[in-house]
C-alpha cells in the first residue's frame, strides 16, 4: 500500500546529485504499540506528497523512519536522517518523548521539523530553531476546554481524570487549574489498563455534572462505557486525542461527548475536500492529526515547489511561512509555536463527530 521508503541505501552518504531528488521524512511510530496514532499521520503526509507528485516533474519521496514511538530509537534514527542530505524536512517527531530525544540532533545539524502531534509545551522552550508545531500545545487547548466547561456547559462540579501520559496529564493539569473550585475530585488512570472500576466508583460517588478526561481514545472509549454502565449520566468532555473515528465504537455511551480540538471543522470547503480525498485514498475517515500532518507536509512541499533544494533555505522558508492551511492559518512564532490557534468544540451525535463551533 505505502510502497515508498524502506530501501534507502541509494541516498545514504552519497549525497544527492540532482536537486530533483528530494525527500521528506516521516518520523514517528509506524509499527508497534503506537502504530494506531502513527497511521493517520503517515497517511496525511502521504496524501500531501501524492497530490504534489501528481503534477510535478520532480517527484518528492516520503521516507518513513519508524521510531515505534519510543524515545530509545529516536537518536539513532535522527542521526540517520541528518546523514541523508536529500531529506530537507521532517514531518514529526510524532510524540513529545521522541521529540525531546531527537530534537537536539535536528537542531544541531539544522533540519527543519514540523510536528503534527507533539503537544508538550516545554518542547518549544529548548531554543531549537528547527522545531515547529502544526497544532496548539496543551497550554492553548486546556484553557479553552476549561472555558467551555464553565461557560457553555455551566457545570458546577467537574471530575478531572488523566491517563498519566505527557499529553493527558499536561492537559488535565491545566484544565484542573483553570476550573479551580469547580473540581470536585481528580484521579489518574494508567494507559493500557482496561478496568476502571475504582475510578468509576469515585465519579459516581462525587456525582459531577461533567467529567474531563485528558488522554487518548483507547482509554476514553473504555472509560465512558464503564462510567455509563456505572450509572453516571453527566457530560463527558475530552480533547483532540480522542477525536478519532474509533471513539465512536463506544456506541450509545459516546453520545453527547464533547471533544475540544484545535482543528477547523470540515464544514469549511478546504477541509471537506481533504476529508473526501483522504477517504478516497485510504478508505477511511481521517483519524487524529491526519489533517495537521497534511498541513505540515504541504508547508515543505510549497517550499520545494518554490525551488528550495537545501535545508538552510527550507528552514528559513518554514520560519517565514504564512499561508492558510486546512487546520489553521499556518504561521510560526519565533519559538516554533503556531501563531494562530483556534479551538473548536465538537460533539458526538447519532454516531458521528459533528462540529459545534469555536470556543471563544
Amino acid at each position, binding site marked *: 500500500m505505502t510502497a515508498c521508503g524502506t530501501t534507502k541505501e541509494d541516498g545514504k552518504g552519497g549525497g544527492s546529485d540532482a536537486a530533483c531528488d528530494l525527500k521528506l521524512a516521516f518520523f514517528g511510530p509506524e*509499527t508497534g504499540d503506537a502504530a494506531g496514532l502513527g497511521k493517520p499521520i503517515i497517511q496525511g503526509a502521504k496524501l500531501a506528497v501524492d497530490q504534489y507528485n501528481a503534477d510535478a516533474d520532480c517527484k518528492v519521496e516520503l521516507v518513513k523512519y519508524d521510531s515505534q514511538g519510543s524515545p530509545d530509537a529516536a537518536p539513532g534514527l535522527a542521526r*540517520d536522517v541528518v546523514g541523508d542530505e536529500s531529506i530537507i524536512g521532517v514531518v514529526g517527531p510524532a510524540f513529545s518523548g521522541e521529540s525531546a530525544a531527537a530534537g537536539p540532533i535536528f537542531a544541531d545539524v539544522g533540519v527543519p521539523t514540523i510536528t503534527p502531534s507533539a503537544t508538550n509545551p516545554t518542547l518549544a522552550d529548548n531554543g531549537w530553531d528547527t522545531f515547529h508545531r502544526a497544532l496548539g500545545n496543551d497550554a492553548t487547548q486546556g484553557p479553552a476546554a476549561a472555558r467551555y466547561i464553565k461557560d457553555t456547559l455551566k457545570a458546577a462540579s467537574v471530575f478531572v481524570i488523566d491517563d498519566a501520559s505527557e499529553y493527558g496529564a499536561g492537559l488535565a493539569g491545566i484544565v484542573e487549574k483553570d476550573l479551580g473550585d469547580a473540581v470536585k475530585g481528580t484521579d489518574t488512570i494508567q494507559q493500557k489498563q482496561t478496568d476502571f472500576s475504582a475510578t468509576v466508583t469515585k465519579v459516581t460517588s462525587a456525582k459531577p455534572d461533567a467529567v474531563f478526561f485528558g488522554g487518548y481514545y483507547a482509554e476514553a472509549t473504555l472509560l465512558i462505557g464503564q462510567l455509563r454502565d456505572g450509572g453516571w449520566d453527566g457530560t463527558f468532555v475530552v480533547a483532540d486525542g480522542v477525536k478519532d473515528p474509533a471513539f465512536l465504537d463506544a456506541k450509545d455511551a459516546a453520545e453527547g461527548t464533547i471533544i475540544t480540538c484545535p482543528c477547523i471543522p470540515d464544514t469549511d470547503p478546504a477541509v471537506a475536500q481533504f476529508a473526501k480525498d483522504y477517504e478516497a485514498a485510504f478508505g477511511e475517515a481521517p483519524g487524529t492529526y491526519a489533517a495537521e500532518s497534511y498541513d505540515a507536509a504541504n508547508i515543505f512541499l510549497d517550499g520545494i515547489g518554490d525551488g528550495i533544494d537545501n535545508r538552510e533555505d527550507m528552514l528559513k522558508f518554514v520560519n517565514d511561512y504564512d499561508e492558510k492551511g486546512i487546520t489553521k492559518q499556518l504561521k510560526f512564532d519565533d519559538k516554533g509555536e503556531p501563531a494562530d490557534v483556534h479551538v473548536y468544540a465538537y460533539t458526538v451525535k447519532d454516531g458521528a463527530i459533528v462540529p459545534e463551533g469555536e470556543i471563544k
Partner: protein
Amino acid sequence: MNTGLKSKVTSLPKPVKILIWLLLALLAYALPLLEPPILSTPDSDFASVLFTVSIYCLVALGLNIVVGYAGLLDLGYVGFYAIGAYTVAILTSFHASWPLLLAIPVGVVAAMVSGIILGAPTLRVRGDYLAIVTLGFGEIIRLVVLNTEWLGASKGINNIGRPPNVGDAPDGLFELPHLFWGNGTVLLDTKDTTKFLIFGYSDAVPFYWVALTAVIVVLFADRLIKNSRVGRAWEATREDEDAAELMGVPTFKFKLLAFATGAFVGGLAGGLFATQQSFINPQSFLLLFSILYLAAVVVGGQGNRWGVLIGAFLVAYLPERFRGFEDFRVLAFGLALVLLATLRPQGLLPPRRTVRAKQLEQELDELEEGAGGEETARA
C-alpha cells in the same frame, strides 16, 4: 571442528594471543568508522546502533552474574538500569548540575544500594518467587517514576549532562574520516568525519567508544571475579544451596553480593544510556526490556561471558538491522526464541562446565537406560 580451532588458538604463545586480542579490540573500536556493508544498518545510524549493542552487552554481563553465575532468576533487571539512568539525569540536569563524571559513580552506587535493599528481604524466598518479586520491583520503579512529578513523570528529563570533550570544540584533537562503500569501491568520506573526542549530538561514535571501554573493563573484572573464591561460591550456591551451606559457604551473603554486583553493572549501563540519549522518560524502562535482557543472557548461554555477549549482540542488533521488516520484527524475534530454545537449549555458547556436565549426564543416562527425565529438567 570447533575444538580443533580452539586448541590451535590456546596453544599459541602468550604474546601472540595478546596481540590477537588487541587487534580484535582495535577492530571493535574502529567498527563505526569502517561501516562495513553487510554489518552496517541501512535504516538507522550505525554508530548509534553499536552504542545500543554495547549497552546491551553491559546489561547482559551484569545480568549474567545474577542469573548465570548465582542462578537467581531476575525478571526486573531494568529497575537497576532505570535507577542508574535517573540518578544521572537528576544530578546533571533536573535538580542539580553536577559534572557527568561525578554523577555516574553516584548512579552506580545508588543502583547497587537498591540491589541490596531489594535483595536482603527477598533473596530468602525460593527461585520462582524471586522471579515475580523482581518483576514487581522493575514495574514499581517505572510506575513510581511515571507518577512522580519530582522525577519528571511522563514528561521525562532532558538536557542530561554529557561527558567532557577532550580537545577543543568544535573540531577536537583531530578528525577521523568514515569509510564510504560504493559499488565495488571504498572511499574515505571526507564530509562524514568523527571529531576526536567531541561528545556532540549528531555523532554517536565517541559515546560508543566510552560504552565499549566500559564493556571491556567489566569483562576483565568479570573474569577476575569468576575465577576467585567468590565465583566458586556462586557456582556452588547455584548447583546445590544446601550442600554449599554445609560446606561453609554463607550462601545468602553470596547471593546478595551477586545481586549487588549485577545491579552495579546495570546502573552503569543506565547512566551511560542516559548521557547518550540526553533525554529519558519512563518509556525506556518497560518490563519488556527486562525480558529482552534475560533473553539475551539465556539465548547466548547463561554462565558464559562470551555467550551472553553474543546473545546481547543478537537481541540488540538484529531488530535494528532488519528494520525493513517493519511489522514482522517482533514476530520474527519470538519465532527465533522458540526455535533457539528447542534446537539449542543450552544457549548458543554454553559454559564449558555445562558441556562437560551434559556429557557426563548422557553417559549416565545411557548406563541407566533412560527414565528420570523430570529430575534433570529441574536442575
